[in-house]
């Protein structure tokens, strides 16, 4: 099963495949104008794809459960917000005021702040991954998994106690300036779309090359991989850093889309985003390029349509879903499709793109 996943992604891209990507891109670009009411939900769809793919690098391709990716998400969110404000105003005074009123940014200041903020979000995320990665990735999977389990919680506790970033009462992101390109939700929609595209093609490229083979080897038999001369720790830390890079930027964007950063419920939200990314990746099929993408689409659409009917039991359902998928449906949707219709191999991108179009409408 695992070897097949690698070969599939490593095949040269045919013309049809690129036509499929082009189609997705066209739909994605037109979607916010056709359905202006759903711009924010669609932005979140791209974000979900990003965080699910980032979890899958570790959880699916490398066989390392990371329950702590939410750390990068929160770090990215706070970094972006603090820099957006901090480049031009005093952050402590800003947070004291409990709102963005009176701290207006000009157009140029806003774009510069956002750009620098997102860049630093990625950098700080990667730094965290390198520090904690070297600390914990020298060990095998279960130590790493439990180690990361506490990371997000600990970070949330620290953020909730740190006055500079607003402590427990959270932090508001700066107001979107007048006269900018398009509306706020359109602007962030396209940023999210660009991030998702960048993430997807980065991973597509990486999985097709030496890096993909190496991390798959670590998953399949780490001792053998090491005996073959693979520097496993270096690969593991690299994989986590790449995940941190994109998750950090995603966090920075989510902070701005939501507009308010709560340390425990938005930034280091272990029970929402932190669990969702795991669920989406295993639902779609872990260890496959398209798996987390499909999982994110299915999950997000289901969530938007039906979640409200569960009346507060959503999070219970989330836990139950994880158990059921892991125990009874471990291959996920894409794995199931591949097992059922192996002749569809060459058409797998089309399967994904069809679902993507449905979700985009």
């Amino acid at each position: 099963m695992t070897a097949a996943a690698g070969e599939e992604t490593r095949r040269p891209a045919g013309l049809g495949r690129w036509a499929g990507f082009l189609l997705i891109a066209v739909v994605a670009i037109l979607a916010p104008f056709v359905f202006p009411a759903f711009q924010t939900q669609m932005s979140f769809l791209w974000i979900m794809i990003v965080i699910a793919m980032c979890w899958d690098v570790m959880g699916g391709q490398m066989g390392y459960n990371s329950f702590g990716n939410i750390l990068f998400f929160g770090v990215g969110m706070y970094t972006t917000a603090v820099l957006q404000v901090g480049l031009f105003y005093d952050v402590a005074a800003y947070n004291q005021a409990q709102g963005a009123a009176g701290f207006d940014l000009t157009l140029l200041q806003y774009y510069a702040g956002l750009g620098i903020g997102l860049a630093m979000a990625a950098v700080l995320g990667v730094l965290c991954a390198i520090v904690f990665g070297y600390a914990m990735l020298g060990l095998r999977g279960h130590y790493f998994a439990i180690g990361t389990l506490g990371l997000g919680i600990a970070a949330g506790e620290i953020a909730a106690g740190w006055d500079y970033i607003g402590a427990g009462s959270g932090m508001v992101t700066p107001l979107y300036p007048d006269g900018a390109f398009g509306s706020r939700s359109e602007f962030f929609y396209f940023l999210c779309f660009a991030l998702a595209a960048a993430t997807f093609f980065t991973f597509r490229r990486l999985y097709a090359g030496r890096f993909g083979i190496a991390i798959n080897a670590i998953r399949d038999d780490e001792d053998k991989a090491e005996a073959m001369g693979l520097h496993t720790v270096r690969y593991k830390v690299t994989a986590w850093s790449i995940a941190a890079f994109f998750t950090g930027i995603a966090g920075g964007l989510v902070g701005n889309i939501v507009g308010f950063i709560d340390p425990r419920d938005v930034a280091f939200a272990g029970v929402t985003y932190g669990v969702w990314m795991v669920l989406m990746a295993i639902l779609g099929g872990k260890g496959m390029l398209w798996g987390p993408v499909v999982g994110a689409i299915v999950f997000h659409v289901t969530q938007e349509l039906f979640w409200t009917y569960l009346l507060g039991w959503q999070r219970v359902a989330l836990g139950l879903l994880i158990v059921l998928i892991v125990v009874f449906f471990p291959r996920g949707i894409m794995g199931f499709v591949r097992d059922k219709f192996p002749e569809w191999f060459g058409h797998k991108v089309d399967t994904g793109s069809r679902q993507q179009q449905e979700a985009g409408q």
Partner: protein
Amino acid sequence: MDNINILFQAPELILQLVIDGLLVGSLFALAAYGMALVWGVMNIINVVQGEWVVLGGFIALTVANQGVHVMLGIPAAAIVLFALGYVLYKLIIFRIVDRDLFTSLLATFGLSILFQQLMNQIFGADVRTLDSGLSTWFALGGMVTVSQIKVVAFVIAGIIAVALTLFMRNSRMGQAIRATAQDARAARILGIDTDRVYAFTYGLNAAICGAAGALVVMALTIHPYQGLIYTVRSFTIVVIAGLGNLAGVIASAFGLGVAEQFAGFTLGAEYQNAFVFLVLVVILVYRSFMLARQRKYLK
């Protein structure tokens, strides 16, 4: 950090923190022993461990609210959780016991989310505690206070530990569990029903956690989302002590309890959880470092 100076000015406080740490540490030791049991026998790292501690607390609370004596909550929690653990094994865990650690980690992680949110729905998100009706001892002119319930919890934890040790050593089931832990295949060949052993072990672990939780709700407080920190504590203790080392588990649980009290006092109570996690990272870094020394051939 001002609190460090207070410690030097009033050395009685150090005694206070050590006593509190030891008393609380005994409860951590129980949960950690359960985790080591399941890890050693079934090769599953039970992420849902902490949720069972909290659930045990809620059950004791519910039982006490019916008007019976508070101490009856301890056996009640143990019995209910034994049944729950047994049923969970028969429903889910037996399907993952032979699979890799990755799968069992994810599955128990899902269970942990499930129970955490279920408790939040059923019992509410408030911080709860159970008044045991016991008072507090004062020593050294009121500088050192020892709440009696913590001492009672300590003693009961000790009794449970002794009972478990005797059970493991002498009973048929205890011997079967130890045999399965040593070599499951050999045990099966010799006629031990390993599936039953696994189910019992999993239930026993839940029962231990439940009893610990019933003590926690009287000696400390509980909260639906608090389980994770008990899981991390148990894991830290087991990693320090090693599997199948009861003395080590007790020693490191006491150590962690005392260290936490000092950290909570000097850094502020809001950073106590962060500290627990920090201890885990430091332990892992140390292990990682020791392993790296054996991996020199790679460089």
